[in-house]
């Protein structure tokens, strides 16, 4: 038994409507990288929160180095040698790296002592840091480095990493893996939470697969391929998606010419001279690490922001730059912004009512300003049926749907009106793999029917899978486009990190 650093027995945690962890049982070997793999909602986060003292389990026990272990707060967990790097960074944006580090540690420490320790950590684990830089000026990868160093200052035995690569460029991922390997070599244990299969295969020794709150399997990663992991994780097989270039017409119907926008706001990214063109039936991907101007660009593409400094947007030879969202819909352009709850859908309203947020000329939803309830109900029912939305009915509140189902519903609402143009941001952000697959499938099908699509996404795998062309946004500038089936991932990765061609 002594080679297990953590022995988890029958951990159960239920919330009012779901059992998030159901008799979770597995062991983590000392000095290994142990993956917990599962879709969103599989119960990974709940388990980790229990381990880190953020949640209390209803039942079950954890043995840590053969002793029963029960912590009530993250501070206590850290005292016991368990550290965690969260997916969303908890750093003070306006303070410097040094200030963030000293604020983050539980015991008092002098600056000189801190710097001595830092130097040691930085060189040993490949974690270079500029102590005087303010956090705002750092890239996502550098911010994560600060988080890791902050945890390492407390010399943890177990390091929990929650979806650490979700905001990193491919190169930053490489460098993170070097760090993780160095940490393990030293005798530490890493608990690696992810839903990315390739990462499990390439860096982890053992994997625990979770689905619907239960442990499906715990075994050495050498027993798996990415495919067999996926089948286990999902409980079903998914077909490969295929994009083809054959249906794309040699005719551009959407052009963005030299869009620039200055915001005078430190929390927004100015857009600089953005130009691109989309062909009829083409899926155009815009890659990039979060916070490089994606949401600012999206607001301009949807017409929610029409106050740009310069530039024009041409759709079917019409300059639409000054038109608001409804006027653009009248031209058959439809939008799906990143945020479902409160942006593309109103959580407090029913699914039927949510139909009315996005109306196209041929929709027959209104007569003299009076809502035709039967028509929106019919439309909602069709979307629910065609896009396999799981819901008790069209009168269910949007907030009662899972992320994946609501996203299918919102995208279904837009696609069902057969738009000529679809502009969509992060189509599969935070949803389960089943819904993700069906959304990507429907986007590809839509493009084959002659709809041009712009996809803004941080998920590079997604863009590689479904787009025909891809370009990268970095610090408000857009790169040249590349044909997705020809470009090397490394090149996109460099561009995402701000390295020019």
């Amino acid at each position, binding site marked *: 038994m002594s080679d297990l650093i953590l022995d988890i027995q029958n951990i159960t945690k239920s919330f009012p409507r779901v059992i998030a962890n159901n008799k979770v049982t597995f062991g983590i070997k000392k000095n290994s990288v142990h993956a917990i793999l599962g879709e969103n909602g599989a119960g990974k986060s709940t388990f980790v929160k229990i381990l880190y003292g953020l949640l209390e389990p209803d039942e079950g026990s954890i043995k840590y180095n053969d002793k029963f272990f029960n912590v009530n707060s993250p501070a206590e967990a850290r005292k016991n040698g368990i550290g965690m790097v969260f997916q969303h960074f908890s750093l003070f944006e306006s303070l410097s790296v040094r200030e963030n580090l000293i604020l983050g540690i539980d015991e008092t420490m002098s600056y000189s002592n801190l710097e001595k320790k830092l130097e040691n950590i930085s060189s040993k684990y490949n974690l270079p840091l500029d102590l005087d830089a303010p956090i705002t000026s750092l890239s996502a990868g550098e911010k994560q480095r600060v988080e890791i160093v902050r945890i390492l200052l407390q010399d943890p035995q177990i390091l929990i990493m929650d979806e650490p690569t979700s905001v990193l460029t491919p190169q930053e991922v490489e460098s993170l893996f070097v760090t993780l390997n160095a940490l393990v070599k030293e005798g530490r244990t890493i608990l690696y939470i992810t839903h990315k299969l390739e990462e499990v295969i390439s860096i982890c020794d053992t994997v625990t697969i979770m689905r619907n709150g239960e442990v499906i399997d715990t075994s050495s990663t050498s027993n798996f391929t990415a495919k067999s992991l996926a089948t286990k994780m999902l409980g079903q097989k998914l077909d490969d998606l295929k994009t083809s270039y054959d249906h794309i017409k040699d005719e551009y119907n959407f052009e963005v010419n030299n869009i620039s926008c200055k915001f005078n706001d430190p929390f927004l990214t100015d857009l600089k001279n953005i130009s691109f063109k989309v062909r009829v039936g083409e899926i155009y991907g815009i890659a990039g690490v979060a916070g490089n101007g994606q949401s600012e660009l999206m607001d301009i593409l949807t017409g*929610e922001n029409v106050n740009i400094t310069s530039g024009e947007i041409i759709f079917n030879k019409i300059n639409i730059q000054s038109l608001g*969202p409804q006027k653009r819909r009248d031209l058959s352009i439809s939008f799906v912004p990143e945020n479902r709850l409160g*942006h593309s859908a*109103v959580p407090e*309203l029913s699914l039927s009512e949510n139909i009315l947020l996005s109306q196209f000329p041929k929709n027959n939803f209104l007569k003299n300003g009076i809502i035709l309830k039967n028509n929106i109900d019919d439309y909602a029912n069709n979307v629910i049926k065609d896009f396999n939305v799981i819901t008790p009915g069209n009168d269910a509140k949007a907030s009662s749907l899972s992320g994946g189902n609501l996203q299918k519903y919102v995208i279904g609402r837009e696609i069902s009106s057969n738009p000529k143009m679809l502009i969509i941001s992060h189509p599969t952000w935070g949803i389960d793999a089943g819904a993700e697959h069906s959304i990507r499938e429907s986007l590809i099908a839509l493009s084959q029917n002659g709809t041009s699509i712009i996809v803004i996404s941080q998920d590079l795998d997604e863009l590689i899978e479904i787009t025909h062309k891809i370009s990268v946004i970095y610090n408000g500038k857009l790169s040249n486009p590349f044909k997705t089936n020809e470009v090397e991932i490394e090149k996109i990765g460099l561009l995402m990190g701000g390295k020019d061609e």
Partner: protein
Amino acid sequence: MSNFLPTIVSRSQSSNIMNFFVPIIAIVLTLITGSIIFLLLGFDPLYALYTFFISPISSSYGISELLVKATPLALIAIGLAFCFKNNIYNIGAEGQLTMGAIFGGGIGILFHDTNTFWLLPLMIIAGAIGGALWGLIPALLKTKFNTNEILTSLMLVYVALFILDFLVVGPWKDPHGFSFPKSRAFSDSGRMPLLFDGLRVHFGLIITLFLIFISWFVFSKTMLGFQLKVSGFSPKAARYAGFNQTTLIFLAFGICGAFAGIAGLSEVSGPIGLLYRDISPNYGFTAIIVAFLGRLHPLGIIFASLIIALTYLGAEDAQLFLQIPSAVGFIFQGLVLFYLLGAELLINYKLSFKRT
């Protein structure tokens, strides 16, 4: 480690049934607290509550008085619902009411010796315009200069009251009024017709019910009602949908102001019959309680207006029969609002004495 102060934790699901019962719970708690207050004052609580809540409406005269008081409250509250649904906090209905009374009453004074069928409709329209114009000022300030409508609409109440004050002691003072601060009386055709002989309940009640019905229709069946609702729930979704926020703000303030203006006009052309200083016992402010007590729903607002109107009548009876200052009515209004907000909080959140 123990923690003595409870924390407020969101309930994962708020019960719809409990949501429905919030106003009822609030009223029951108000009655209980009221009994305790009466007990501490040395009265038999049952007798005091009877005097306060039952005896005022135990005659047809009492019921008529109840409706007279409930009419402006319900009309203003339904107008406020247009604002509150859109998350616009118009606190200035009292000023819009006053301005409606000034505009409509001004017509009444101008034609004080004319008896003709069009006088009252003209006064009503003028009242609506006056209230709407007064309501559009904070809307303009909010959309142009991003000012907080709570402050501007509230301050405009006092401006309106001073204008009324100025008019009734100055230019509009009744020349035969022995220098009392009041205007001439309106002509008979400038008065709201009475619905029953000998009772004060007047045609304003019919107008109010009609406008409440129209509002219900707008809220539940029209795109305008939908737009107000969406802007209130999530402004970002409204922007995504392409709703014009500026238009919605102007509409909400305009409609609310017009309703309050009509309420003011029906007060002065109904029970009062002329203009003077104290035309409204704070109907414009009390209607805020009515709107929330009625959960911004037309039917709810009708019931809430009756209950709050009763506190006005009860306070008068309490003063007469128990020799308690009539301000006790405000205590009851305050209690209802307090318990309403409290119950609403506890339906969506719970107190937790355990650390999460």
